[in-house]
């Protein structure tokens, strides 16, 4: 009966261990890259300035007294959908005295109720 060759077991085992260590290190180093990558990207993804701009525009309508004008609502909706790919919608409820603002650009969705404007 042919015996299995038991020579070189040490070499195989050490090679195995070293390979696993290499894989582990490469994994760690690879993951550390992801951490840095998403920081600036996520800042760009979140449309903070757009939301601040839309809020400022709608509050300006309120100060000018033109909040109920429907053509302004359609201006915002159509132009933003065509040029920026974002949905902007707002509603003014006179009886309960609040403004509801909705903004959705695909990655960020923003809803707000401005009370007693």
């Amino acid at each position, binding site marked *: 009966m042919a015996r299995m*060759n038991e020579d070189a077991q040490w070499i*195989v085992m050490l090679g*195995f261990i070293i390979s696993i260590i*290499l*894989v582990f290190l*490469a994994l760690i180093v690879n993951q550390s890259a992801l*951490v840095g*990558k998403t920081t600036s990207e996520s800042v760009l993804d979140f449309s903070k300035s757009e939301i*601040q701009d839309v809020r400022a525009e709608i509050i300006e309508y309120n100060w000018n007294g033109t909040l109920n004008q429907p053509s302004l609502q359609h201006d915002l909706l159509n132009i933003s959908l065509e040029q920026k790919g974002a949905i902007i919608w707002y509603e003014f409820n006179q009886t309960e005295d609040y403004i509801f603002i909705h903004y959705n650009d695909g990655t960020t969705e923003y809803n707000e109720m401005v009370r007693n404007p």
Partner: protein
Amino acid sequence: MRVPGKIDHEEGLLSLDFIIGFTIFMVALIFVAIMISGLLVHLQSRTIDYDAVAYRTSVVLVEDPGEPANWHLKNLTFPAERDDVRRLGLSVEKNYPGILKLNKVEKFFNYSTPAGCYVVDKFCKPEDYRERLIFGDYPYRFNISLRGLGPTPLPPYSVGSEIPVNTSYGFIKRIVKIQMQNTTLTIPLTPEPDLNQTTITIRIPFSDLYARAPPYRIDPLNEELNVFINGFGSLSQTNITDAKICTFPLIGTPGCIGEDAYADPPRMNVFIDGISYIPGDRVDDNVTLIIDQGFFHRVGYDRFDAVDAVLTFDANVTNQSMFYYNYTTVDSLPWLEPAVIEVSVW
């Protein structure tokens, strides 16, 4: 045909050990080769981190009013008040990003180095800024600078270490507008024939002043108020007998507060011809009333109160029973001027 016991060079046979070892090694090598692109980024990760910290710091500075919102009134000589300041933000109010308050800007850039800074009304560079603005465990080095772009000359504000020339650093630049104030209520007295009042009463209605949006607002609770009364030279000799601030309507506490109620700032300052007030002084030309920023806050008023500043003389000085301090009577309203802020972190 295999001949047992004879080594044949033309049969592509490998020993089992070899195959196993080779397979394991190749799998590991392929795995590592795929992750080589991750190794590249590792060399740049420090830079990315600093830019994120700089951006976050600039957002807290420019878009946040700070915590508490009137932190510029705190006297940093007292450790309890220094601890009260949790976050240094320069914005004028919560929903107005990019509009800065000049008092906060001046207080922010008023710093000194340890250990002398803990007993004076200055921030400690860099500990106070690290704890209250930059946050995080790592001791970042920073430089924050501001330069005005408008017509009013502002000193070139800067705090922090010198920007390095050989290492990379995180950087962000923001454009802001600073609210400038030069507000005084000027009351010119004239020698009219029907003078019948020995007191000059100035009504300061807080609720009227607070009815305007924060960037254009005169904020009596958090800012200095100035009243300038001149024209005494054209009247007969007058001595000032009393100066006080009374709640309107005059019921309950705190009632009337005299000029001598507080010895340390924030307090009510009265100057007769430029010299500090002593009751009974003769007034030759003018009276200046300066209410320090934070005085009304110290007394305990809120934005719905109204106060009367009452100056009493020993002769008739005016025929008007009430002067008002509001947006139509002051000589100059607050206005905005642009500025640029740069934050560098490394």
